[in-house]
């Protein structure tokens, strides 16, 4: 496997989607190619960083506001269900 092929299969390698033979080829290349090793390591870190960044909860006060807005909207629908404006 050369560098171009390794990069082509990089996501499949990370996601463990390669068959045994291709995975062995990729690992053999990674043992000898520093640049591809760095590309793999930094891509994995990029994914982890975004996962971590996206894993933060909504601030509690904002969450309560959102729930209150939804409840209000549900109540408003009960008082004035869709279509009632034409039912008179």
């Amino acid at each position, binding site marked *: 496997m050369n*560098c*171009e092929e390794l*990069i*082509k299969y*990089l*996501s*499949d390698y990370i996601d463990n989607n390669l068959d045994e033979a291709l995975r062995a080829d990729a690992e053999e290349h990674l043992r000898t190619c520093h*640049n591809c090793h*760095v*590309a793999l*390591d*930094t*891509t994995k*870190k*990029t*994914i*982890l*960083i*975004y*996962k*971590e*960044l*996206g*894993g*933060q*909860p*909504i601030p509690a006060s*904002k*969450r309560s*506001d*959102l*729930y209150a*807005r*939804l409840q209000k*909207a*549900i109540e408003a*629908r009960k008082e004035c269900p*869709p279509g009632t404006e034409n039912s008179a």
Partner: protein
Amino acid sequence: MSEETELVAALQSEQPEAALGLLFERYADRIYRLALGILGDTGSAEDVVQDTFLSALTHRQQFEGRSSLATWLYRIATNASLSRLRERSPLPLPEEDPVSDEGAVIPLPKELTEWRFTPDQMLLDGELREELDKAVQRLPDSLRVVFLLRDVQELTTEETADIVGISVGAVKVRLHRARLELRERLAEYVAETMGG
């Protein structure tokens, strides 16, 4: 009866409020973060959360159980977010040109400095966090949505394909391109400011 089946039955009953409340409890945070990732501003993300749950209430009888409730909610939220993006910019921006999934050329990584820091250490850098937001917002919409669903929300390739309405192969290609583009932008920032 499984918990999901019970929840669907409750949602589709005459008194769906409790089931909707439970769905909100479980998925509001994730939907908010997905919308924030797609749209880039908190006000619009809040509106998408509200739109998603109201739409779920309005269209609950149309849920047929061909996907999970979670996938169904993600689909509503993704469509609501994309619809807001289109409202903002009725004409496609150059970066929104359709992505050619078949035969897409994957560029080789250019910036290959080693990163000495762990992801946790890197996230302590406020400027880097801004850079991360900018980088994901600069991705074409079609790549950004797939990246957010797969790598941030941790949905499967099949679920992502179902939500976005593309093939499994197209999800894989878009995810790969998104990861490499984000890696490159982050690598440039790290090399310039953190010395690798």
